């Protein structure tokens, strides 16, 4: 069983992260405007605790003297060396082709469905009234970049 219930959907607030441990792996779950994404809490650059970093916007520039913020709260900046990753894809901003944070598929499931199974909820009871986040350890959320 690679799918596991890890949190109530309401526990992960917008622009925030909740770090959970699933079978010994620390995984950060992010809520980007109602969409949920899950990244391993380990930076692919040097092994830092990636999900403890800040959730930031992307600073862009058309040239010297111009700057703009884009994609607010969609990037994660590693707390050690400051590498920035796209929360939606896990891709590094500076090295998108070969550096990517490990990502897991996360889905929202109604409690009513979960109570019937077959999903595993090891750490807490599931009630029918709420929505839950389910992580699939076996599935990358998006295919690797070409």
């Amino acid at each position, binding site marked *: 069983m690679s799918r596991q219930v890890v949190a109530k959907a309401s526990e992960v607030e917008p622009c925030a992260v909740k770090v959970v441990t699933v079978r010994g792996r620390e995984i950060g779950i992010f809520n980007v405007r109602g969409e949920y994404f899950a990244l391993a809490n380990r930076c692919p650059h040097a*092994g830092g605790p990636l999900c403890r970093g800040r959730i930031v916007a992307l600073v862009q520039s058309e040239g010297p003297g111009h700057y703009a913020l884009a994609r607010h709260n969609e990037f994660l900046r590693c*707390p*050690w*060396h400051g590498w920035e990753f796209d929360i939606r894809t896990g891709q590094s901003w500076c090295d998108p082709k070969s550096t990517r*944070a490990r990502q897991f598929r996360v889905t929202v499931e109604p409690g009513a469905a979960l109570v019937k199974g077959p999903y595993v909820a090891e750490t807490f009871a599931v009630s029918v009234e709420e929505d839950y986040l389910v992580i699939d350890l076996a599935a990358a959320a998006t295919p690797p970049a070409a």
Partner: protein
Amino acid sequence: MNISLRRPEASRDAPASLAIVDCDIHPAYRTPADLHPFLPARWREHMATFGEHLRQGLSGQLAWPRMMAAGMRVDAFPDEGPPGSDLALMRAQHLDVNGVEYGMLMQLSRGGMEERNLDFAAALSRAVNDWQLETWVKPEPRLRAGIVVPQEDAAFAVSEIERRADDPAFAQILISPRASDPLGHRRYWPIYEAAQRCRRPIALHVQGFSGGHASTGSGWPTYYMQEHYATTTGMQNTVTSLVFEGVFERFPDLKVVLIEGGFAWVPALCWRMDKHWERLRKEVPQLTRPPSDYVRAQCWFTTQPIEEPDDPAQLAEVIDWIGWDRLMFSTDYPHWDFDDPRQVFKFKLTEEQKRKVFRDNAKALYRLP
């Protein structure tokens, strides 16, 4: 766990079972009042009334805004006080999990190095040395203090070095590489003489506060990123000054550790110095050997922040030239550009190279048991 690191071969070099010496750990005060118990009343009152007089504008503030939280690892903030001020967190987050056998303390702020009032500088120096002993080394015997002295008052510096000389808690002597003059100047020689006599290396850590000079030869940088590069050129200026003024020739047992200034520049600098020495030797007859000889014999370098060439093998070549017995591992904990001992080298080291860089070179240099 199937995570691909940026260069996967790196993780195989984890010194998992090897105890390491970390040559650059930054302790911090919870508050400036932490120094009060170690300062005479006269200087506590001075501090409260006048504050400090650092050799830069905006005292009490970093010279450059840092992109990470005040230049710190974001995960290194304790419940109270700044990163580096909580021994329990330092143990849990670094000393224990990274197998640190010895950690060399680099206390850079409020140690008198940059204080213009020399009497106050002397009091700060003595206080910060007592503080290192009582707050860090006595409770945590894995740590070693550095004798922080104000290099602009050589007479006091010598007395403070001699005062600590019999205490193995103090492994080296810290002065600023951004002094009022380049460090080869004779005004600083009494410090080198004392260091040689007391068998302590001189530790030169790139320093945020300057002796009043711009950090680059062409003026003040605009960005922190530029300032970060300026530390490597600043270290080169320091090495050339020590070589050509004759410091290494005059004090052949003096050992100098260059900390956080990079090291990939060392071969190129030495090639250039040697070339010029062959042609211009008459100007500096005090040198009896090629400049690179002095560097190889009397300079040590720390790893962090390590250079990361696209082809990691190129860094191995650089180290081959410098000598595997002259490079010492460092993390810079708890600063933002911390190097993890398991990830720092992106190429495969031999067992002997690993032992030397991660432990044995530092243990020999600092005469650690």
